[in-house]
Every structure is written in C-alpha cells, then in structure tokens.
C-alpha cells in the first residue's frame, strides 16, 4: 500500500481547520494544521506536504504573502496550493491564481467537492466527478 498523501491545512479558524482535517483523515490523507503563515512555512519544511490548503485571511502575514514566499522558495515552489476562501471577490481569486495557486474552493464547501479538488490538484486518479462535484466549474456558489 502506498504511503498516505500529506496535506498541510493553513487555516486560522480552529473549527474549520478541525473539520477539514477530519474530512481529509476519513478520506485517507495525513494532515497537519497551521494557524498562521509563519507556522505554515516552518511546517512545509518539517511535514513536507504533497499539497497545501490555504486560507487567505490569516493573522499577521496573509495567504497571498505565504503563497508568494512559498513560490519563491526553490524546493517548495512546486507544491500545489488550493485556496480555501470565504471571499468571493474575483479580484482575490485572480490574485491568488496570478501568484501561482492551482485552484480554489469557496467556503462553505461541499465535502465531495473538496475531496475531488484535492485529488485533482495532486494529480491522483479520480473517478469521473458526480454532478455535485462538477458544479465547481460553474463558479463558486455551493
């Protein structure tokens, strides 16, 4: 059996971080939580995640700043990042994309959708998404 995939969850809201961690754990991922950008940056080195879920609104340095730092650090710059954001402004999303984020999921998120997006981000083989999972294509509404 292959080694479980490691996902770093960068989220300052402990409820949501917990929720995501449980969901990912149930789906077979190893997760690690970071509540701010500096902790996250440290954990990238220690935990060596296969992918990162990143909130934009973080205390201190925000998600954009973390993303910029990550993409500027040679060993980590290829780690795929999925933005997890309650902000719906297209500007924020464009900004994140232009900084190198691979995809985004709006909060509140659907469990299936989130899992599908993570799997796709990691390049893993995933089943053809169900209608529910596919709705992300049409925008950021649930």
């Amino acid at each position: 059996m292959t080694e479980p995939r490691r996902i770093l969850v960068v989220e300052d809201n402990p409820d949501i971080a917990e929720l995501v961690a449980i969901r990912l754990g149930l789906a077979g991922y190893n997760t690690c939580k970071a509540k701010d950008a500096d902790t996250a940056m440290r954990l990238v080195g220690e935990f060596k995640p296969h992918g990162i879920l990143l909130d934009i609104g973080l205390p201190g340095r925000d998600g954009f700043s973390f993303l910029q730092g990550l993409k500027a650090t040679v060993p980590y710059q290829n780690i795929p990042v999925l933005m997890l954001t309650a902000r719906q402004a297209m500007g924020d999303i464009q900004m994140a994309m232009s900084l190198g984020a691979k995809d985004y999921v709006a909060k509140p998120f659907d469990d299936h959708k989130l899992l599908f997006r993570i799997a796709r981000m990691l390049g893993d083989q995933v089943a053809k998404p169900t209608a529910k999972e596919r709705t992300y294509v049409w925008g950021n509404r649930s």
Partner: protein
Amino acid sequence: MDLKAAVRAGEAATSAELFELSPCGLVVCDDAGRIIRANASFCEMTGLDPAALKEANIGSLLTRASFFIYKARVAPQLALTGSVQEVSLDLKLADGQSLAVLLSARQAPAEGATVLTHIALFPARERRLFEQEQLKARRELRQYRDYLQMAEKLANVGHWSYALATGDIQWSPEVYVIYGQDPQMKAPPLNDVVALYHPDDRDMARQAMDSALADGGSFTYRARIVRGDDIGIVQVHGICERAPGGEVTGLFGICRDVTNFIRNQERLEQSEARYRLLADESNDIITIFDLSGCIEYISPAVKKILGYEPDDLVGRNVRDVIHRDDCDATFAAYSAYVRNKNWDEGLRVRYRAVHKDGHVIWAEAHPSPILDEAGERVVAFQDVVRDISHQKATEDALAQASIEANAAAEAKAQFLANMSHELRTPLTSIIGFSALLRDLLAGNDDLRRHSQRIHSAGQGLLNLINDILDHSKLEAGQLELDLAPASVADIAADVVDLLSLQAGNKGLTLTVEGADGLAPQALIDDGRLHQVLLNLVGNAVKFTETGGVTISLSQSRLPDGDRLRVSVRDTGPGISEAGKARLFERFSQVDRSAHDMPGGTGLGLSICKQLVELMSGTIGVNSAPGEGAEFWFEIPLPDMNLLHAAPVTVPHRPGRILVVDDQDAVTDLLVNLLTPYGHDIDVAINGYDGVQASQRAPYDLILMDINMPVMDGFAATRSIRSGCPFNADVPILGLTAAGGEARLQACLSAGMNAMLAKPVMPSALLNAVALWLNVPAGTAFDPTAAIRMASETKYKTA
C-alpha cells in the same frame, strides 16, 4: 495798235497772268462739270499734268465722300443761288493722297447758252486740323460733363453758381435732384432757393451767404429741406468768385444731400447709447480685452461683483483679477478657442476671480471673439462674465451629495460583502460538521436525520446569503460578467443532474431537448447562466406535482449574431395574469399552487431577470392557470471567432499610462503585464482619483475601469474630456466585464475610445495598448475614428 486796244490787250494779258499766277487753285467748268481751264496753282495742288486736266470732270478729281458733298450740296446751291462759299472738300491727288481744300464757286453766263462755273480752291490743312481739335475738345468736354454729372449723382453732391450782377443761379442736374425740383426748369432766384429750406433754417442760410459775400470768404451751412412729405438735410459749401481785379462777382459752391448720413449717425449714437446703458446696467460684467489680456473696457457691474471701479481695471491685465491657480488653465482655454477657429461654437470658461477685498468668487465667462477686418484673426475678446458663486456652491453641494451617496452605496455593498464573509465562516462549520455527523452516525437514523436537517438549513441560509449578495451587487451595478468559452449543453446537463434526485422523489420527468443543435462552445458567463437555469428549473420542479419539466435549448443565427434561447416548461398549476405581472419583481412571492408551498427569499426570479439583462438578453413567462408554465430567456452570443483573432502587429512604443481601477488585483495584474514593456504606469484607485491624477500630469493612455466607488469610469471620462488641461484628447480605454454593443456604445458616448473586455487577456491588453499608443499625439478626438478603432480593438481583444 491804239491805246485802248493796247490797254485791253494789256488787261487781257494781266487777267490771264492773274488767273495763271493766282495763289489759289482756279478752275473753270462748263455746266456738265467738264474742266475748261485750270491754273498752275491747281495743277501744283493736285500734282496733275495740265494736259490730263483738259476735259476731265471736276467730280472725278474729288474723293468719293467729297464728290457726294459736291453733288448733294455744292451743285444744287450753285444752281439755286449762283454761288457757294467755303465748302470743305478733299481733292484726290495724283499720288493717291488727298488734300483738304475749301471750295468757293460762282456761276456766270458765258457766250452762247452755256453757264460757266468758276471755282476757287484754297488749301485748308491747318484749318481742318483746327476743326478736328475743336471737335475733339468738344467731345472731351461733353465727356467730362457726363462724368461730373455721374460723380455728382454717386456722391449725392451737386454744384451751383450765383452771379451777383444778374442774380442768375446755375444748378447742376444733381442740385435739382437734391432740392426735388424739375430739371427742365430754370433754377429759381436766390430768394426762392432759400424758401425751399425749413422756415427755421432760412435766416441762417441767408446770413451765411451774405457774410461770405460781404467779406469775400466762404461759408458752410446745413439746412433742412421739405421734399414732398419727406424732410431732407442738405449741406451747402460756397466760396466767393472774383473778377481778375479782385472784386466779388458771385458765389460758387457745392450742395450735398446728407440726410442718410445724419440719420445713420443719429441711429448709431442712439444704439450706442442703448448698448452702453445695457452694459452699464447689466448684472454681468461686460468687458473687452486684447489677446494679452489687457482690459480695454469693463462695465460698471465689476463694482458689484469684484469691488473695483471700472477705471481701476482699464489698462490692467485680466490676470490681476483671475485667481492665480486658475490663470494658466483659463488662458489655455482662451488660446485653444482662438486656435480652434470654431468661433460660432460658444466657449464657456469657469474660473475663480479675486474680489478687491481678497475673497474668492466663482465666475463663468462667455467670450466672443472680436475679429480683424478680414474676419480671419481674433484681435480681442468681448466677454460676458457672470458671478456663479451661488450656482457653483449648489453644484458642489450636489456633487458632494452624489459622492456621499455613492460612498453610502459603496459602504452598503461593502458591508454586505463583509457580512457575507463573516456569515460564511460559521456556516462552514455548521454545514461541514452537520454533514460529518450525518456521515458518522450511519447506525442511528434519528440522529442522522437531525444532522441532515441542520445541514439543509445551513445550505438554505447560504443560498439566501448568496441571493442577497448578488442582489446588492446587481443593484449597485457592481456585478460584472466573466465571459469564457463553455458548453451550454453541459450546463443544462449539470442542472438536470443536480435536480434529478428531487424530481425523481416527486415522480417527475426531467428532460433536455435540443442540446444537439447547439454549438459545442459559446462565449458566456457559465456560472451565471448555470445560476439562472438552476433557479428556473428548481422553481419548476418545486411547483410541479405531476408530469415533468422540459428544458429546451435552441441556437439561432441572426444577422447581428447568434442567439441562445432556453425555455423551461412544466406541467404545474400555471400562473395567473396578476401573478405574472409581479413575478420578476423583487421580494414577490407569487402563489403558484393550491398548496402552501415553502417560500424562498423572493429574490430568485428578480436576480434571474437582472442577470439575463446584464447578458443583454430578455426573460419572460408564458402561462395560464391550469396549463403549466413556460419560463424562457434569450441572450445574444458573442462571436467565438473573436477569441482566435490574430494579434495586431503595431510598432511598440513605451508611454505614460494611467490605470484607474478600484480592485488591487486588477491594477496589480495590469502593472505587472505592462511594466516589462517599458511603460511608465500610475495607478488611481477610483474615478475621482483618476480625474485628479489626470490633472496633474499628461498621459499617453488611460485604462479606465467602469464600476468604481466614488466616481465611475463614465463620469471620470466625461470629466477628463471636458476640462482636463493635459489629457482632454488622451485615448481612454474602458475596462468592463459586461460585454455587448450597448456597453460599447455607452463607453464611446462617455468619450472613451475603445472598450477592453474583462477578465483582461494579456495579449489583448498589450495589443490594445500598443495600438492606441501609436495614435499620433495631439490627434483630435474624432468619434468616427474612435468607433472604427474601437471596433478594431474590440475585434482583437473581445
């Protein structure tokens, strides 16, 4: 030979000698005109041989014209009276020339029945020349008299003379005209002339002439004359005529009709007085100043408005009263007006002026140019300046109110956005954990159902938040479409997938028709189209109890592009006429069934309508109670080829670019895209900020977002076009996510040169920027060119 015979012989000899030697030509002819004798002088005169003269006819020796005169005048008179004197004729000479002669002749009876004609011919060359000169002189004199007469007629001037000795008065024809007298009549005596004047003017005229005659000087007077029912005015100048000895012999002078001249002068004076009165009494300042601004005239209203006496300012420069900060812009506006040469189009300039006591007033000037005599060059301005301080204060208050209102709307939208963000975070926990519970409590159906209820309620709350947020964005005009290629059939299939469970639970069929007839991809905002369709189909499923729901898709090719028509038909209870009328209004809940149906926010259809309209489409419903309902919408589809258009190749030129956009992400993107090409970029964070920036520095190009807080892109563009000293002609490209011809026209009519679609595609942006930076600097804003360029730009970038 006796003495008597000797004397007779001597006399005969003398007479023959006399005949022969006489200094005039002598000829004797018979009654037929044949020459019997001619003397030596005659032969000399004509240069003919005496032998040749013998038997020649006198008529044949004359020129043709003279021969006629001889036949017509000389011969008949000779026959009648026996003599003619000094008839002027021309002799034909032997060398072909002619010779002017005077002919005198007498007839005398001779032996037998014949009558001899004795003709004497004197050379008359000198006399003929004299006569010709006299004739010429007379002709010239007549000509001069005609010219004089014409000149007098044109000048309305006549000349006259008065002989003291005889009392005779001579008038030139024009005098008759001026005095209204019959030119056939003799000029009246002096007393009668004076009697033609107005009674009040007669003594004055008389005195003027008398005193001139008394001291030998000259005189001038002006008198009124009565001509029929019209009163004219004549001006008479006279001077004494003197004999060689010096004594006064009479008067000579001219007389001029000055009626029109005097009347015009009076009228001019009156109107000048009127205008002066108008200028003096006006509440606006009326002023004349030259191109350097030096004041030549300023009306007294300046006292009321600026506190100065007119005399304080005449000779000073208008810069002395215009506020220092407004001087340059004001002068620039006047200079541009002079250069424009479009003087009929009035100029309106607003500037601050400084009152004598130092306080500032707002003035509005309406200058009109004073041209040189050729009418080609402005030499001065006549300006009407109004105090608009009160008006300006009102306008400023309105503008401030509008800024505040916009700020309030912005604050409201921002509040809603923040609220939604704040609500989403706890909802994420509610929805997420309730789903987790539901999934983990697989063995306990009750708890599982309870968890599901929390989950569903959370979803409902989330939909509500999304609807309210969309509605607020639509109302504030902040919602912009995000066009990208997508499949309409996929969107419909997805909506069916999403609702199939719900429909299946009620036993309804849910089908899609016409998906095969669609183009594989269309340029649409897939998310928003999905939202509209989900809402319509969701409603249909909700309100239908038996039967099914059918989604029909069709795409038709119209001359102005493709149109997509989507209809959602159900077999539900249908909607009443009254219900249909309120259906698309916000917060309306139309009772569409006999049952008590769970209501939503009442925003769904209102949002659908606004979204479809944002897509430049229309939405409607066909229904009757008991017959089901058909909701439909039609939207135009932009040409997909626009995406694949070849990039424009124009030479690259770096320039100064102002980016006006309130979204940091967009400005960052634009700056990042443009900076590598050597452009110098400034950023303004809203329309008002953009206008301010454009007044500080000249730019080569402005990129202008449309939906912005404080002042939107249209208002900012209008403001820059109307009054910005540096950038009134600068190309302005609008950035908008709402596509369509209507939006393009709105951009152009606000004064933009072209429109760029959002989200901005790098190649399109760079092409448009390169294209517009190559528009030659100083090119006047030409709407037709703008539209042409805009359509090119749109083609390349849409």
